[in-house]
């Protein structure tokens, strides 16, 4: 995977799907730039979980009708993006413990440490996000910010 793959944070997926989102255009631009640079967009089930959770939350607050099928349709569209692929965390028991090292070293929350573990075991080089939770990871050269 290496140089040709970029893991996307859920905030990018949310902004891509949510049309009135303040970062919607930026998110679309990220997907366009990845395609132009021949870098495959990568997500994981954890990203899908976070994306669904936040959109579902927005739908409930706004009391939208039939929101589950709308979100399902949105996720289906996300999964149809050209060259988008899913990766998983490792399944080996011992490798799960690596997240504690990441939590301490980079001051990450458990789920962010799992994102990093997923990227590391799949040799993903780039990471794109709208937040700065991974700044310590970028500054140590573990991942490259896109």
């Amino acid at each position, binding site marked *: 995977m290496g140089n040709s793959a970029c893991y996307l944070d859920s*905030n990018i997926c*949310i*902004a*891509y*799907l*949510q*049309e*009135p*989102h*303040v*970062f*919607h255009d930026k*998110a*679309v631009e990220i*997907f*366009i730039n990845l*395609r*132009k640079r021949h870098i495959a967009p990568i997500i994981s089930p954890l990203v899908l979980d*976070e994306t669904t*959770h*936040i*959109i579902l*939350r*927005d*739908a409930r*607050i*706004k009391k*939208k009708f039939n*929101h589950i099928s*709308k*979100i399902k*349709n*949105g996720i289906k*569209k*996300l999964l*149809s*993006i*050209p*060259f988008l692929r899913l990766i998983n965390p490792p399944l080996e028991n011992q490798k799960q413990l690596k997240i504690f090292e990441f939590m301490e070293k980079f001051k990450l*929350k458990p*789920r962010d440490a799992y994102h990093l573990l997923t990227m590391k075991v799949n040799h993903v080089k780039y990471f794109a*996000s*709208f*937040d*700065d*939770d991974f700044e310590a990871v970028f500054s140590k050269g573990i991942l490259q910010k896109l």
Partner: protein
Amino acid sequence: METYTASTFTLGTSTVLTLPKGLGIKSGVKTKIKRVKSGLNIQLKTSPEKDGGLAVDLALIKKLAGGIKFSSNFTPKQINDIYDKEVYG
């Protein structure tokens, strides 16, 4: 026009056509097969049509975007904080 020789073998119920590695043809390339007088004419989509593929993909990325219109006005940082609060308490 250059001509290359390819060979075939049977795999289950399919016939697999193997092409010389030097042609640099990647797996999954779209193939068009025409029946002609002398046999079959096989056309593989290669680099000149890649730009067409790019344009199609970019249009698709724009087309797939949006569609969910119950967004809140939270920034990604605020969304992150909300998620953390709901997941971790």
